[in-house]
């Protein structure tokens, strides 16, 4: 197991490097000019100097190497400085956003809590709703509940978030006036009333995202439970005279959870990636919204760093899911 993990870790380094090259080359083709906003009165030679100051004059491989150094060497040093008060990164150039002229990682860290709150919460809520639905639909296969569950998850698959989001805004904030349609990120929770306000503004984006998670995971849970319910060990457990609740909730559930946990792990990178559409719709200024605005503003270092962080998360959680699968299921042997 350990050798497998180490091998996968080593293999993920070239994968990530290759992904970063792909993203970098893609961005190099960008037709946009970061100097487009500079007034026309600025003379061309000054513009050229500004361009060089942004590191644009150098050849592509030099630019790529500089980005690599900044991302993998300077940024971790900044983090260590921040934690331990040392001065490793003193005077070194960090990845700078062209939009705000401030370090990209600082902005990412500012935006992270909003995304984690809304998208992370929706993931947890979605899982908590999905698991009981999946278990019960499998236990009573083809019952009315199962049919309804299938229909609801089909709807969850079919209604895109930009429609379900608009739909709940029309119903709950325009017609009924229950919840605000805009998520206020400056809101501070310090007493019961402000907590209620926070809850109210979170309900709609969380539910819109949770519908999608629920649809997916309840299907997986149902399929996995159905696989296990017909196994011989279930008959043995029943024959021993165990209570039905113990048979289903202990024997079957524990075995069915093995693939589900890996599915859940595979979905986690999407949390950090933020939900671009939902965040735009409810005006949550999280990571997804940051990426969208950076794209429209031609802020290449920001786009590059954000997409690469997403890629790292996907690769890491793929690895975690595979390793977890091996740890949880003793029948799986990688070596």
């Amino acid at each position, binding site marked *: 197991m350990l050798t497998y993990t180490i091998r996968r870790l080593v293999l993920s380094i070239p994968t990530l490097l290759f992904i970063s090259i792909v993203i970098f080359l893609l961005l190099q083709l960008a037709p946009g000019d970061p100097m487009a906003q500079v007034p026309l009165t600025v003379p061309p030679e000054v513009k050229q100097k500004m361009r060089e100051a942004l590191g644009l004059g150098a050849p592509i491989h030099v630019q790529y190497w500089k980005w690599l150094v900044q991302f993998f060497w300077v940024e971790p040093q900044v983090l260590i400085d921040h934690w331990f008060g040392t001065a490793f990164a003193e005077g070194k150039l960090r990845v700078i956003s062209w939009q705000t002229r401030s370090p990209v990682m600082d902005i990412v860290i500012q935006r992270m809590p909003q995304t984690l709150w809304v998208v992370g919460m929706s993931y947890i809520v979605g899982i908590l709703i999905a698991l009981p639905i999946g278990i019960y639909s499998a236990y009573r296969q083809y019952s009315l509940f199962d049919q309804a569950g299938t229909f609801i998850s*089909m709807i969850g698959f079919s209604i*895109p978030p930009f429609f379900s989001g608009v739909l709940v805004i029309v119903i709950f904030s325009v017609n009924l006036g229950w919840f605000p349609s805009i998520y206020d990120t400056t809101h501070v929770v310090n007493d019961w009333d402000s907590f209620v306000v926070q809850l109210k503004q979170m309900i709609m984006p969380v539910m819109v995202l949770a519908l999608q998670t629920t649809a997916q995971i309840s299907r997986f849970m149902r399929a996995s439970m159905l696989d296990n319910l017909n196994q011989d060990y279930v008959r043995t457990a029943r024959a021993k005279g165990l209570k039905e609740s113990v048979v289903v909730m202990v024997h079957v559930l524990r075995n069915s959870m093995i693939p589900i946990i890996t599915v859940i792990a595979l979905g986690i990178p999407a949390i950090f990636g933020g939900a671009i559409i939902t965040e735009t719709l409810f005006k949550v200024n999280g990571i997804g919204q940051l990426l969208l605005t950076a794209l429209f503003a031609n802020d290449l270092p920001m786009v590059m760093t954000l997409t690469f962080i997403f890629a790292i998360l996907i690769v890491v959680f793929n690895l975690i899911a595979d390793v977890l699968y091996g740890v949880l299921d003793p029948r799986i042997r990688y070596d």
Partner: protein
Amino acid sequence: MTDQNAELETFGALKDKEPQKEPRSQWKDVWDQFSKHKGALIGGGFLLFITLFVLIGPLIWQVDPKALDIRNKDLRPVYTLLWDGEAKTLWSRPFGTDNLGRDIMATLIAGGQASLAVGWAAMVLSLLIGTTVGVTAGYFKRLDGILMRITDLFLSLPILPLLLVAVTLFRQPLRAAFGPEGGMFILIVGVIGITSWMPTARIVRGEILALKEREFVLAARSIGTTPFLIIRRHLLPNVISPIMVSATLGLATAIITESALSFLGVGFPSDFPTWGKLLSDAVPRMEEFPERVMLPGILISLTVLSVNYLGDGLRDALDPRIRGR
């Protein structure tokens, strides 16, 4: 005499009591199983209806979706008369008009044409890439490793951000080369196709790996059939069912992705309606005119829902282990 009777009786026991059934083809079995799935039948029917609606619709509803009619702008659909007798409506504009007086019925039809065309084209492209990669990786052992590594690599790319990046980056050159609408069509179909072939490739590779060890492939090879012919004649017909199932999934995701891109404002040019674009254009004024959001949204959702049910039914019908139960 007695011998003959005994002989007849033995043969009688072997004889069928009822007349022989006509031989059944595989596709008749598939259809029988498929038609048992109510949801799939309704889904397939609705997909057919919506396709006919956008194809034949313009011939029946001959209103130009781009014609401006400022005098009759912001009309409500006729059904609002049911609860609001004073609503501004016009019977010649059954779904009302938008803020520039364009007929909503006509824009919905035109938008549907664009959305469905993108969906079908992107699905076909991703199937072509996915099947080619899957078959090549499954059949040629030497290419298996590298092709599957590439598939894994594509699977670990963050798709939606990359789609956005690609569309914003390549918009200008392609528009210059193929015109604003043609260029956007090629771009969107291309990026959706290139980023969604991986599941098909994996499934097809798995099936091919199992199939190519079977005796009929060995027999074909032993009489000197070339690899290309083996693939075309013996392997592809056997993997048609997983390909068809992933085709339905691909169509659904392609329609949703195109709408999402349009919704985020990186899709087709502003005077070219698609369902996602109509929806996103209507969002700022959805309090006064909710129907402009609801109609395209409902059309997208119903189309995708019907495609999903169709896929569900196909999966059951094409799987011989489930069929006949």
